């Protein structure tokens, strides 16, 4: 039995504010079930979160515990993924590294999302000199060699993961701002924006309550897709000695330290490398999926 198409195309829903949310969740779930790739992405991300939360129970060793007399051991029963140059257990470090990775992801999202959104939306909505000014600033940040900015920032604030991530964020917001601006410019002309203007809403209110939520989905999608390169940039800064500080088990730093041994001890690079790849793959797949969920056109 199928619904006739012309009959009022309103699915039967229980009528309450909560059910509106329920409906969104239901649609997302539905989409997930039909898209194994998105589902796979989600599973990996969930696993990542789980690993981060339950690290102490999953890890087989203390990730910081050194044993300078048992360094660079190949994977085996005692150390599933071998040990590093300090004799630390790679598997446990990988598990704890999930926390760092998640932290990077969260921090960048928290910084880049709002900044990019605010600059882009304001620029697109007000136009005129606000737009000119903001876009010039964005241009400056875009044409600034990202490494210079990151290096300078890390150099100014001192090395450390937070600073590296903030530095990355500083170089990551301009594309987001441009995206938000483009989106806002097309929304600005929309009738529903004209309608709230006619109701006397202040520009601030329109930006925050009407425009930002609509840009949010594409911004989020874009952010998810950028996650891979953000994790890798963090690794790249680690490569230059500017990322996370030892002994923190950050995957990128693990790779960059492990690369010195990679010819003899493949696991030192392969394991965190695979982890980064898996997670960024997952974020990308999830991002693709989110785009499909959020974008009614597809």
């Amino acid at each position, binding site marked *: 039995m199928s619904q006739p198409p012309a009959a009022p195309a309103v699915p039967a829903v229980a009528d309450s504010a909560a059910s509106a949310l329920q409906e969104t969740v239901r649609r997302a779930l539905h989409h997930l079930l039909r898209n194994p790739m998105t589902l796979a992405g989600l599973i990996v991300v969930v696993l990542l979160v789980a690993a981060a939360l339950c690290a102490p129970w999953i890890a087989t060793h203390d990730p910081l515990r050194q044993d300078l007399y048992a360094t660079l051991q190949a994977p085996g029963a005692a150390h599933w993924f071998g040990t590093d140059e300090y004799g630390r257990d790679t598997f446990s470090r990988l598990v704890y590294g999930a926390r760092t990775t998640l932290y990077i992801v969260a921090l960048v999202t928290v910084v880049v999302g709002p900044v990019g959104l605010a600059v882009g939306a304001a620029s697109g909505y007000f136009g005129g000199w606000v737009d000119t000014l903001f876009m010039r600033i964005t241009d400056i940040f875009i044409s600034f060699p990202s490494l210079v900015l990151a290096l300078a920032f890390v150099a100014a604030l001192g090395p450390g993961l937070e600073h590296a991530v903030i530095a990355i964020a500083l170089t990551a917001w301009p594309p987001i701002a441009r995206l938000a601006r483009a989106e806002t410019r097309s929304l600005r002309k929309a009738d529903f924006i004209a309608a709230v203007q006619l109701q006397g809403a202040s520009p601030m209110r329109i930006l925050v309550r009407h425009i930002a939520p609509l840009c949010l989905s594409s911004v989020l999608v874009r952010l998810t897709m950028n996650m891979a390169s953000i994790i890798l940039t963090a690794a790249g800064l680690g490569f230059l000695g500017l990322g996370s500080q030892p002994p923190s088990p950050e995957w990128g730093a693990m790779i960059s330290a492990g690369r*010195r041994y*990679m010819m003899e001890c493949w696991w030192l690079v392969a394991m965190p490398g695979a982890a980064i790849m898996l997670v960024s793959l997952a974020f990308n797949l999830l991002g693709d999926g989110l785009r499909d969920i959020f974008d009614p056109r597809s």
Partner: protein
Amino acid sequence: TTPRGQLVIGMNMNNLLSLDPAGATGNDVLGVVANLYDYLVELDPHDLTIVKPALAEKWEIAPDRNSLTLTLRDGVRFKSGRLLTAHDAAWSLQRVLKLNLAMASPWKSYGFSKANAEQLITAPDARTLHIVLPEPTDPKMVLYTLGTSVSSAILDRDTVLAHQKNGDLGAAWLLTHAAGSGPFTLTEWRAKDAMLLDRYDGYWRGPAKLRRVVMRHVPESLSLRFMIDRGDVDLAAGMAAPDIEALKHVGRVDVQPVKRGNTYYVALSLKDAKYADKRVRLALRKLIDYDGINTAIMPHYGVPHQRPVMSGLAATLPDPGYKLDVAGARKLLAEAGYPNGFRTTIRVLSDPPMINIATALQATLAQAGIDASILPGTGNQVYGSMRDRKFEIVVGRGGGGVEPHPHANLRAMVYNPDNRDAARLTNFQGWRTSFHDDDINRLIEQAVRERDEQKQLAMYREVQQLYDREVGAIQPIAQMVDTVVLSRRVHGYVGHPSATTLLRDVYKD
């Protein structure tokens, strides 16, 4: 594979900045300058205390030990074709002091200055160089400096002055050019890319065996390893330990370690109230896993060593045998009022092995409850903070040691004649760490003036014991080893502990 007459050297050339003998810092430049210029004397690479004639045929220390007279050999010509005279030599040394750049510092430590340079360093005739010492010191030291320091290279005065700009004594030009009499000429230098040295056929010792020396910038150790493995590079310097280790088992290449006078150390700042307490310093001394670090990290970078004076000198005491002793350290910390440890920071260069030592140290500190965070940085940042006396712990490398004399180490690492901030004795690690002990200072000053060798030896030994007892701010862990990997086609390469490795006798199959 590389051509026969050429020696191809792969190395990280990031630290090769200035070639000016008056201002060039760093180890890498020593190897270049030694082959572009001549020195008055040379130190035997097998036994540094043996001083051998070079531009100077002979030398004489005045009986009152207050002056040196060197007699220069005749017929040496610069690449410009000019004859090298004692006037060039005197001018070269005066120039260093007049410019007062980085390399003036050994000379200033002997009491020379911009103002007295012309009176004290003189060339009475074309073949005689007369150096009067402004303060009593051990003239041997000065001789060593003449044989090792970049600042002692002899320049072609006229050529340099021809390139002078705004009275800079050719400083700008010499950054990237050379005007000497050494076995090789600088043909091309592309910073951080490649440097070509070509044989100087008019070299007074006879032309070098190699037609050309090519240095190539290969910053990544693994790439260098592949290159030497394939024979595209004859000699690789500054490789990472794992790659050297791997190459040890390759038939075509040899691994040649050269001990240097520098040490890897852990330095504490006594400005910090915690480390002003001797017990805490002692606790930290017990919290270094000397054996573990030397087994797991140091191979190819250094050999175990725990004294402020470099090993191999007559004055050096045997290692005191410090060991990791967490329980002992905890007890000391408790006594000092830190039963639960404290928080601190470790500043360190982000390169191996320094960062590795710091990481290992961090782990052992944690065992005693000390929560240390590591702040990696460039040399500039790490040593900059040290110069400003703004640090808690630094893991670093240094300590004089170019001249094979205990004084060189002690001056750099221990001596601190004025501990006030305003003194800004930034060239002394003693001042940087705010470690100040009158007895030690006095002994160091006396020792270098002492004429009796046995007495001098005894004094230097006493300094080391005092330093041990007073728990000095700097705790050496290992003495630096510079390991080069070279192809078996290369013969006659003798790595110099003072980094002034000479290539004139090197040849290839």
